[in-house]
């Protein structure tokens, strides 16, 4: 017995070590920094203060402003929209792949995954070229009266959403595909035999079975999308600033490290709240089963 527990300890050690060095210690550092004052050039300095949080809440030299609140709400809004679109595209796509003959499935899955082997920056620059003014897509949008003829689809909020959806699609398709693979078709057939409407078949036979995949995909998509930096930076044209960009700015261009740390802290808190909401949602949809975490 004692030998067993020693072995357990030994096997746990590397994992615990990695988590301590790369997660726990930096987080403590970050939290500490958020509660320091800002030095003459934006670096953290003593004494301990709530200055960064006051600034984050919008209080500044010119009184209160909702600017940072806009950034937070915009981040949440863009994340929600992108995640919903990803789900709407990924559900049929994953289903379609499962219904193909067995030899075809790995090929199709590979086709979904391969683009994500390329760097995010390069793929975003690709969208810049596709959406620039004078390209067929932009000309079509202009002909339909959606945009002014001189302006392209890039830069815009539309381009940001496309970039987000495109970036995170594989992370939703893969878990959903795994869920569809294990789908018990007998339940679906039974529902049909009992004259269930297509919606009822989906709601009561398909959704509960694929829910774990859907929830896993949502976590994999929504959390990184909420912290997204590259896509908004490159495709947004300065109109789609998200929390991730805000935090990055405070450590580089703007130079206000405590404010950046406070922003990162809020980001973590909002992410945890999001996970909680998702968990409750999963429980309600899944009939009191734990489907998230």
């Amino acid at each position, binding site marked *: 017995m004692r030998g067993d527990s020693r072995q357990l300890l030994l096997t746990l050690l590397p994992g615990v070590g990695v988590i301590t060095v790369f997660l726990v210690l930096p987080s403590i550092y970050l939290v500490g920094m958020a509660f320091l004052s800002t030095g*003459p*050039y934006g670096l953290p300095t003593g004494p301990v203060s709530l200055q960064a949080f006051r600034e984050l809440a919008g209080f500044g*030299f010119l009184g209160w402003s909702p600017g940072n609140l*806009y*950034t937070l709400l915009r981040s949440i809004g863009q994340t929600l929209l992108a995640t919903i679109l990803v789900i709407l595209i990924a559900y049929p796509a994953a289903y379609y792949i499962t219904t193909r003959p067995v030899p075809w499935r790995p090929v199709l899955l590979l086709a979904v995954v391969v683009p994500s082997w390329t760097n995010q920056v390069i793929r975003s620059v690709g969208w810049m070229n596709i959406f620039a003014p004078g390209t067929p897509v932009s000309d079509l949008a202009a002909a339909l009266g959606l945009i*002014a003829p001189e302006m392209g689809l890039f*830069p815009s909020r539309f381009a940001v959403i496309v970039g987000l959806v495109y970036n995170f699609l594989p992370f939703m398709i893969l878990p959903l595909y795994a869920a569809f693979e294990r789908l018990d078709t007998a339940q679906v057939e039974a529902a049909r035999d009992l004259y269930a409407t297509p919606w009822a078949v989906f709601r009561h036979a398909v959704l509960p079975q694929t829910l774990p995949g859907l929830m896993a995909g949502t976590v994999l998509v929504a959390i990184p999308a909420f912290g997204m930096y590259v896509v908004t930076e490159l495709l947004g044209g*300065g109109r789609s600033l998200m929390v991730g960009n*805000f935090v990055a700015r405070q450590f580089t261009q*703007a130079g206000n490290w405590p404010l950046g740390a406070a922003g990162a802290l809020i980001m973590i808190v909002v992410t945890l709240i999001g996970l909680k909401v998702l968990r409750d949602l999963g429980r309600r949809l899944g009939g009191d089963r734990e489907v998230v975490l």
Partner: protein
Amino acid sequence: MRSSLLRRHLAALILSLAAAPAVAQFEGETLYLFNWSQYMDPSIIEAFEAEHEVEVVENYFNSNGEMFAKLQAGGVSQYDVIVPSNYFVPRLIDSGLVQPLDHDKLSNLDNLLDKFIDPAFDPGNRYSAAYQWGTTGLVYDKAALGEVPATWGVLFDPALNPDQPFAVAEDSQVALGAACAYQGADYDCTSRDALEAAAREVLAAKQRDNFAGFIQGTPVLQQLVRGSVAAGMTYNGDYLFYKSEDPEGFADIEYVIPEEGAEIWVDNMMIPAEAPNPALAHAFIDFILDAEVGAQLSNWNYYSSPNEAALPMLEPILQEPPITPTDEEMAVLRFIPSLKGDDLQFVQQLWREVESR
């Protein structure tokens, strides 16, 4: 042309031969250079490596803020030479991130033009020696906008540009400076009222339908060629560099110093406080300050040389606008002020407001 080239090479050869006995001092050592990208002629690096039998490792940054953050996060002991812009020099000195230069090791320091010796941002050149200088002005596409006057109104006045996409600089002080100048204050305005009014000007520009984003000086040139913006802010040297690479694409793209005033800047070589090899760093700075090398550098990256001894060797295209501004232009060019404390935070809060809406 050819004979002068030959003479230059001969001179370089003689120089390197003459310098040969002194070299063994650094043999096998490594110099870590932290510089802007596209800013150093690779053959200068090779010449330095050959002369001292050392290796040079180059790392790049895209903004002063990024460079400052990297130094603060441990870079202070990783790089031997950094190249910050004028308004970041006092920040680096005050933060204790750089070390004083040993003028005894910089025999070529006297080559600098008078205006770059003893600059206001570093009295007595205690910490810095000029690398290259240039201007940040207005760049626009004549084919899209037609003939427009040399004014920041091309960006800020909807009447001058009602529908073509335009970009504003990404750096807060550069963008606010242009707005200050447009409103009749100087480019280097520091009063809070003027800055607040400037921020409102930029915000108004941002809220127009044809605003295409805050884009840095180098990428904006690529977007101008591609046609995704028709006006923006860029650096004179990058403009000329890309124009000479692609004369056709740049046929209609113009660079001007707006009559209201614009930015003049100088990038400077400095040595981080805990540089691994300060002796080699001094040798490198002195090498760049050499007249021949200084001329070669400007002839490669198309920026103005602060090196008086190098001026006669510059290519003719560098001795006229936009690289050498006219006297009238020089009169309205201003250095960006170095800010600290509340003044710096004030500008940054204003800029956060502009960015977040």
